[in-house]
């Protein structure tokens, strides 16, 4: 059974490789942008490397889509800022992120600032869980 604990070592290694930092600097709760210095191109690189390593497909924007859950775009955000319902959905999805990192009036384009190493572990587990099922029904 795939879980955060057994995915983490490989994710940690890939993140260190993508960001050209020491593996020891990559902890499960480290934020990619604020703590590890990731830039937007690094996210593209990271997703590409994770897709290759875990044989999964992660569509661009999948994290944001997952965070939205059952909410429509209009329910999730208004004028680029998260609604109250959107914030609840986001906190629910990113439950590994400490409460103090969710600032009031958070903008949609600021969501990647919250992503931690664990966020990507969860993304892989979710993709692994859904994609064989999708392939089976295709």
């Amino acid at each position: 059974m795939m879980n955060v604990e057994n995915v983490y070592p490989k994710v940690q290694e890939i993140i260190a490789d993508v960001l050209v930092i020491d593996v020891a600097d990559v902890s499960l709760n480290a934020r990619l942008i604020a703590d590890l210095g990731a830039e937007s191109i690094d996210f593209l690189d990271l997703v590409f490397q994770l897709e290759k390593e875990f044989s999964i497909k992660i569509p661009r924007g999948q994290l944001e889509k997952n965070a939205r859950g059952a909410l429509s775009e209009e329910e999730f955000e208004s004028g680029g800022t998260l609604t109250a319902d959107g914030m609840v959905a986001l906190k629910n999805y990113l439950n590994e992120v400490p409460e103090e990192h969710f600032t009031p009036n958070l903008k949609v384009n600021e969501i990647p600032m919250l992503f931690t190493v664990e966020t990507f572990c969860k993304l892989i587990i979710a993709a692994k869980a859904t994609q064989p099922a999708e392939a089976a029904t295709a």
Partner: protein
Amino acid sequence: MHFLFVDRILALTPGGVTQGIKHVTPDDYYVCLDEQNRRYFVPSLVGETVGQLAAWNVMLSNDFTKRPVAGIAERATLHRPVYVGETLLLEATLDALDDSAVQYHGTARVGDEVVFELTGALGPLLPMDDFIDVDVVRAQFNELNLNLNQPDKLSDERLLRAPLNESAVDKLHHVNALVHFDRIIDHVPGVSITAEKCITRAAPYFPDHFPKKPVLPMTVLLECVMNLGRYFVDQLIFDKAYRIKCMQRIKMNDFVSPGTVLSAAMTLKSQQNGELVLSCRVSSFGKRVCLLELVMVEVREIA
């Protein structure tokens, strides 16, 4: 000086494979001289040409609303130089395309011989209008996309060995300066080297790259890094000669505008089994601009 390299698109499946050609001729601006005084197309620009071929497909597929920009490449392998008088047969395949990025790979051949390969290329897509007028790009594409038949193999020995006139020599000197760093700042032979380059608005690639947002082409920067790597290795006390096999793990983090001062720090990362790996970080005032590794392989013993 134009920075558009595909001469003709021969076949194009939107979102799929594109084929095209580029003649390397005495009229080409971006050529260098090898040790035997043979003129060859600036090697990184073979990769630029493959990338531009892929970009035409991407832009057609999104109706010219967005254009790909340099991002990441897993590996760019340079099998041999492409000389004046030869014709590049180009092929680029889009592996994945959505509204934010493209993933592709490609090759360039001369006849049946593969001279260049690009794997794992990933480029973000940005609004076309930030870079160039949509109508200008459409007109450029329509002019290229004539679907002519593939030409006969072209390789003219007379062109390879033709004497250079003075203006051609001046041009070579100019191109040579464009694809080298301006000065070495620090050098510990066999350990590390740091070089600097100031980016001038007068550089000939800026009008095409791009009219509304001039930025240094990543491939020009890569050529500078390759030349720095050659210099670094030449200074080592080796009894072997090395050639560049490939660049790998290439990542362009930021745009480089006119007026930028670039600093490239290169170190010898590993040396084993006849292969050297040089690691290079290019930055501007401490901010990361580009990362890559240069792999050099032993080619012969020095007498």
